[in-house]
């Protein structure tokens, strides 16, 4: 099976969907001539031309709002945010217009738009460029949110997102763009709202997604080898819709849960998960639900300290051991 980088898998998904559906358009800052700030869209301009691959000015409220309007008339814009952090200047267009227009029109309109780009810390770019807004986005009914962690999932989820008739927010991670993984040559889709057991185990369930999930896998290997702990890692992949069945099945198997998220803790995705797990599987739990988040402060610049602020394998190992002891 071919091995692709995460960024190449995203690019392949874009190319396949651009080929399949003439209404798919890729728009964003520097996605065409410059090949994308993170080279995700490299080569697409040459292949599909300037009508399909469109460089925009630095004007997120303008071009995202424009994409929402175009989607109401049947265009399927895939809009790149250079950083998801920049969503804040387009908040009204995404979370008032795209999220609500179906509802406010009594179901007469739908917005098949995808907004994608990296949403992560760890690159020493400071607080304004390190937001992880999946919790904020998922707080808005009408919006769907996916966070792929592997090249296989990145491709399959993006193809599903582009075909989806609801607005889908697709959160990538600059730290994962170079990660490699097997991606089949034949076409496949990963449906939204389906979690994936990335590692089977029996002692502890780690529920995670995105880069924190990749780090959880690394931690799980150490926990197995050095602490004889068998950890199951559930990769949510999709925040909304959310596959609670897979989470709850794992809880019923291990009876202990650690939620690991690259999120600030207050009102984060982990808070929602912990509420739902205790509410729906209280009797299955042998210990309180543990949670490891980003240390609760704006993202620090200082490179070695930022690593400690974010989830990392060492912090996850420590949290897992504590979860087993409680």
């Amino acid at each position, binding site marked *: 099976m071919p091995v692709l980088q995460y960024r190449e898998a995203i690019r392949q998904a874009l190319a396949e969907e651009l080929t399949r559906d003439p209404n798919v358009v890729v728009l964003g800052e520097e996605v065409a001539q410059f090949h994308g700030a993170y080279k995700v869209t490299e080569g697409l301009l040459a292949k599909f031309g300037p009508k399909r691959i469109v460089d925009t000015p630095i004007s997120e409220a303008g071009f995202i709002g424009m994409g929402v309007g*175009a989607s*109401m008339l049947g*265009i399927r814009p895939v809009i790149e945010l250079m950083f998801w952090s920049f969503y804040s200047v387009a908040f009204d*267009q995404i979370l008032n217009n795209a999220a609500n227009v*179906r509802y406010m029109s*009594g*179901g007469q309109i739908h917005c098949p738009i995808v907004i994608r780009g990296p949403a992560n810390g760890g690159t020493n770019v400071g607080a304004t460029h390190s937001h992880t807004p999946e919790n904020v986005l998922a707080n808005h009914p009408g919006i769907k949110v996916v966070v792929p962690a592997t090249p296989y999932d990145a491709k399959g989820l993006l193809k599903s997102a582009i075909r989806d008739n609801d607005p889908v927010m697709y959160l990538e991670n600059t730290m994962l763009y170079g990660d490699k993984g097997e991606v089949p040559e034949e076409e496949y889709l990963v449906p939204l709202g*389906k979690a994936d057991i990335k590692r089977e185990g029996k002692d502890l369930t780690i529920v995670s997604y995105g880069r924190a999930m990749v780090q959880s896998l690394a931690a799980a290997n150490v926990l197995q080898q050095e602490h004889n702990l068998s950890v199951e890692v559930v990769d949510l992949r999709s925040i909304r819709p959310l*596959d609670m069945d897979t989470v709850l099945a794992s809880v019923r198997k291990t009876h202990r849960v650690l939620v690991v998220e690259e999120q600030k803790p207050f009102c984060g995705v982990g808070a929602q998960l912990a509420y739902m797990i205790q509410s729906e599987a209280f009797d299955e739990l042998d210990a309180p639900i543990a949670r490891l988040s980003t240390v609760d402060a704006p993202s620090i610049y200082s490179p070695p300290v930022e690593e400690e602020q974010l989830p990392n394998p060492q912090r996850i190992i420590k949290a897992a051991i504590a979860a087993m002891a409680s």
Partner: protein
Amino acid sequence: MSKKSTATPDELGSSLHGKASHAEAAVNSSLSKDQKIGLYRLMVRIRRFEERSLRAYQAKKIGGFLHLYIGQEAVAVGCCSLMGKDDHVITAYRDHGHAIAVGMELNPLMAELYGKATGCSKGKGGSMHFFDPSRNYWGGHGIVGGQVPLGTGLAYALKYKGLKGACMTFMGDGAVNQGAVHEAYNLAALWDLPVVFVIENNGYSMGTSQARSSAGDLARRADAYHMDWGVCDGHDLYEVRANMVRYLDRAREKCKPSVVEIRTYRYRGHSVADPDNTYRAKGEVEEYRRTKDPIQVFQDLLLAEKVLDAAQVEKIDAEARAEADLSAEFAEASPYPSIDDVQKDVYWEADNPGERTSGGRLFFN
């Protein structure tokens, strides 16, 4: 008025003397007698509908905000009367007039105000959120200026699909100071999108006059984006049509955007909740109503043209009042949405379960 006008009061005045020429403009002189009566009737229906809705609001049948269009009717009717099959309309929250002007029926509109399941948005949108995509009417949007990028996107879609249409993107004079509006201007001009940005300048952004909120001339800001622009009066339906047709044609035929400022006036406060006693003099409203009321102005024109006579004026008015009353009766008799309806029309997938491809939970209670 001419393009690149500096929009001084003098020039505005000069346009008033050009009334006859507006009537003679091809777009107006080609109207049949019935078409002219139809346009007049539309304005009267909007006025009577809104007056009836105001009474319902005062009787607490309607919640939230009610932003009335009374005084501005010739703008929506004049502009929307020029729509072809691929022309589209989007506006802000003062959206009743445009809805009726594109042909929406009064019953679902009044029912929407009453929050009823028979409303045009099933009682989920309210006064600010009337939509009818089947009539190319895309709302009805609550945030000042927020609809302007959407209208630009509708125009983008038209161009992408190779359709010869235009999107009239309405906004108020308060919206011109929002960043999203300028971002949309830039994109429309940069990419030659077929959009006509229509500023309905009623002189007040909420309770703050134009002089106290906007630097310089409003439409003239288009110059910075090398967009065509113009200013005209909005109380004369003929004038609105004579001006708008040029910009619409330019958008349709040449894919060129423009900004048109239409000077109009609202008789009521920003919304009905606005006591309207702090920022303008009562005499100002009375003066406009006495000299420039758009329905009276067009009625006088049609009487002079012998298109209408007094009996017909009376009949049209009586019918419009009766229709508005019937719409209130319809709304009153209609059921409210159920609590189960609250979670419908949120996700396309949830509303089309047979075609759902995703798994997992979409709702969390």
